[in-house]
């Protein structure tokens, strides 16, 4: 089994290095194909490992080599394939295989074709390290690695200033959170003496609750950054400047779920501190609602899907915070499938519409883009949680968990958000695919994407439809490691009312969205009553949070930096320049010595000899009579 572990881990690295060889050459089709094949081999290896674990096989745990060994600190490059990491590996390799194949078509006309695959595969490698590491240090390497690759891919079109800005924003926001995470990791090491999961977590049971709380909080701060939870959420929507396959892979299916993965991985820690868990759950529920509300009015297709990702991450945190780790992990998996599908569908639409992102300028696309239409509709149904698609099983279980744990406020918020989710998802579908063909005003001739792109997407479509049947096997698999409890509502009647009620609520939201937007005919120009209402403006401007960050953090920081720059110029630079100018002027003044006249130079040589000799004599005497000199000096009171 170790063989498959290494293939799954290193095939993406090989793929990345291979593609990197061609970064400066023109587009080469085979780079994309070979990269896809290598990622596919990682997927196959992960599948073999999954069947091994599903068959009740032993956890695969290898220690590749020692990384650091000094004193009491021992950190190996160790990798573990257990029930949690194998799930993540499946999600990562499956979605990335599909995204790689899809990108061959999507990046077809891009100059950076080869470079794109180098970054994308590097991302997969970092993500594999993140999920497979058996210690916090390895996890942190992967964590930083995905951050770096995310930066490179958001800013992939670096000639666009917004793209580089968004890339930097994402990187800096994550850096802030990573500091918290790093502190958390240090706390773990100081208090348990190890970073290995299998040593650190059992040791935590003996620690006092205050220490554990701090650990939990700091680790969660790291998770908040990576998973774009409030208040570090602004980068995710801006990250949509990257190419769409990147949004599908990194900013929907995998990297942003790393925070959820961290909380699930640390379940033994969070089980000991339920109050932090409750905070995580509350924040998750808040973010779910908060992000969904911003998605309601946005007019950028990719941002709407990004907000929905944010909202779904909120659901995952709500579940994980309430101790329903397996539900969180299951939703993570199901969400990866339909959200990646949704993004790739949006990519097709973008290609067809020549990078137009405003759904109000589309409409009626179902006639020309039948395949994409079906896929996006089903993905949206799955996202909305309609039976029998994937989202129904995962999202409803989160609601049930909240209900069964008697957190009615969280339950209520999540239920309401489910309605919002359904509404904005179908607002988007209705605006893009139904109604009048508003794109004609702009003279665009849309066309369906390449066939092989649609075929590449079909596994996701399939999984978005049927992932629900995996719920029981999945539960049985992770049961032993995540201490899973099945969330049964005791009375059958209550359960039935809840299920049907939720379904009806969501169904009504969908119908309302269709009724309102399916026959939309004009492009809004900002003059309608709704668009001028306070709430619309508040939501459209993302609660003015980016504006607030800009005004109250970035600008004062800029001013502070400008002031400090002055200090730098007048103090630091001045002293350095001063030292330099002393030498410079000394040289300038003594260059007259170098008159070229042998006689003068010989005189100077003699002067030098005399000076050196007298110094030697003085120091020699001082050394010989040091005792006497000291006594004279002390007599003088020095």
């Amino acid at each position, binding site marked *: 089994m170790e063989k498959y572990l290494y293939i799954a881990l290193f095939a993406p690295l090989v793929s990345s290095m291979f593609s990197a060889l061609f970064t400066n050459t023109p587009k080469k089709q085979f780079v994309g194909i070979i990269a896809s094949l290598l990622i596919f081999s990682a997927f196959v290896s992960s599948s073999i490992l999954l069947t091994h674990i599903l068959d009740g096989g032993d956890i695969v745990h290898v220690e590749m080599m020692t990384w650091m060994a000094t004193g009491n600190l021992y950190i190996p490059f160790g990798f573990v394939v257990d029930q949690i990491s194998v799930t993540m590996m499946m999600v990562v390799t499956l979605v990335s295989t599909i995204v790689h194949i899809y990108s061959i078509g999507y990046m077809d006309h891009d100059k950076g074709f080869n470079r794109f695959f180098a970054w994308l595969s590097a991302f997969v490698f970092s993500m594999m390290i993140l999920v497979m590491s058996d210690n916090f240090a390895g996890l942190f390497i992967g964590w930083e690695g995905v951050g770096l690759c995310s930066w490179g891919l958001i800013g992939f079109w670096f000639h666009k200033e917004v793209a580089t800005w968004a890339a930097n924003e994402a990187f800096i926001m994550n850096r802030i959170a990573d500091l918290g995470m790093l502190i958390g990791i240090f706390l773990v090491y100081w208090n348990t003496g190890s970073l290995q999961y299998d040593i650190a977590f059992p040791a935590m049971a003996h620690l006092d609750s205050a220490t554990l709380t701090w650990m939990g909080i700091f680790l969660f701060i790291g998770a908040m950054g990576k998973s774009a939870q409030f208040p570090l959420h602004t980068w995710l929507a801006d990250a949509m400047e990257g190419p769409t396959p990147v949004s599908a892979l990194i900013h929907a299916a995998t990297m942003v779920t790393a925070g959820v993965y961290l909380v699930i991985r640390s379940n033994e820690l969070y089980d000991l501190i339920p109050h932090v868990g409750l905070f995580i759950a509350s924040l998750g529920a808040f973010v779910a609602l908060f992000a969904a509300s911003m998605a309601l009015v946005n007019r950028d297709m990719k941002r709407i899907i990004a907000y929905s990702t944010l909202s779904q991450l909120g659901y995952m945190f709500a579940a994980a915070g309430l101790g329903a780790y397996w539900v969180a992990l299951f939703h993570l998996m199901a969400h990866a499938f339909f959200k990646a599908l949704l993004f790739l569908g949006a990519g097709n639409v973008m290609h067809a519409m020549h990078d137009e992102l405003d759904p109000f300028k589309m409409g009626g696309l179902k006639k020309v883009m039948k395949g994409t239409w079906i896929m996006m509709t089903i993905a949206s149904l799955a996202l909305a949680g309609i039976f029998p698609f994937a989202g129904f099983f995962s999202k409803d279980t989160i609601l049930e968990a909240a209900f069964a744990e008697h957190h009615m406020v969280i339950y209520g918020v999540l239920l309401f958000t489910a309605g919002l989710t359904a509404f904005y998802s179908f607002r988007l579908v209705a605006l893009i695919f139904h109604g009048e063909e508003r794109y004609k005003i702009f003279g665009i001739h849309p066309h369906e994407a390449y066939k092989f792109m649609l075929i590449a997407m079909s596994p996701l479509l399939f999984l978005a439809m049927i992932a629900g049947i995996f719920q029981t096997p999945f539960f049985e698999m992770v049961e032993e490691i995540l201490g899973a409890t099945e969330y049964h509502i005791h009375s059958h009647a209550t359960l039935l009312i809840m299920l049907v009620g939720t379904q009806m609520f969501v169904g009504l939201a969908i119908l309302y969205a269709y009724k309102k937007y399916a026959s939309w005919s004009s492009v809004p120009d900002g003059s309608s009553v709704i668009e001028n209402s306070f709430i619309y403006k508040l939501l459209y401007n993302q609660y003015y949070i980016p504006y607030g960050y800009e005004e109250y953090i970035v600008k004062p920081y800029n001013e502070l930096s400008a002031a400090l720059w002055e200090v730098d110029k007048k103090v630091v630079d001045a002293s350095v320049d001063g030292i330099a100018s002393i030498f410079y002027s000394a040289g300038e003044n003594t*260059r007259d*010595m*170098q*008159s*070229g*006249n*042998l*006689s003068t130079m*010989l*005189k100077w040589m*003699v002067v030098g000899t005399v000076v050196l000799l007298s110094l030697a004599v003085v120091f020699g005497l001082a050394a010989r009579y040091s005792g006497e000199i000291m006594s004279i000096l002390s007599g003088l009171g020095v």
Partner: protein
Amino acid sequence: MEIGLNHYLILSTILFAIGLVGVMRRKNLLLLFFATEILLNSVNIAFAAISHYYGDLTGQMFAFFVIAIAASEIAVGLGLLIVWYKRHGNIDLESMTSMRG
């Protein structure tokens, strides 16, 4: 009066001072060479005298080395001097200022 080590050292010092003044004052390249010879030989005297005083041959051997090196130095120096004279028609130090910084 017995001639002792001090007399030799005093002679050596006087010769060294004469040589040093010569090195600093002479404007003629040939005389500069003479001055250097005086400097070197003043040191040779000191070497030989101290060697004799301690009964150790090392100093006298060193003096031989100095003589050998001084000879080769003068050989090269005079060669250059003649070339210079053929080119410029003088051997005045004041005219040799091409190394001016």
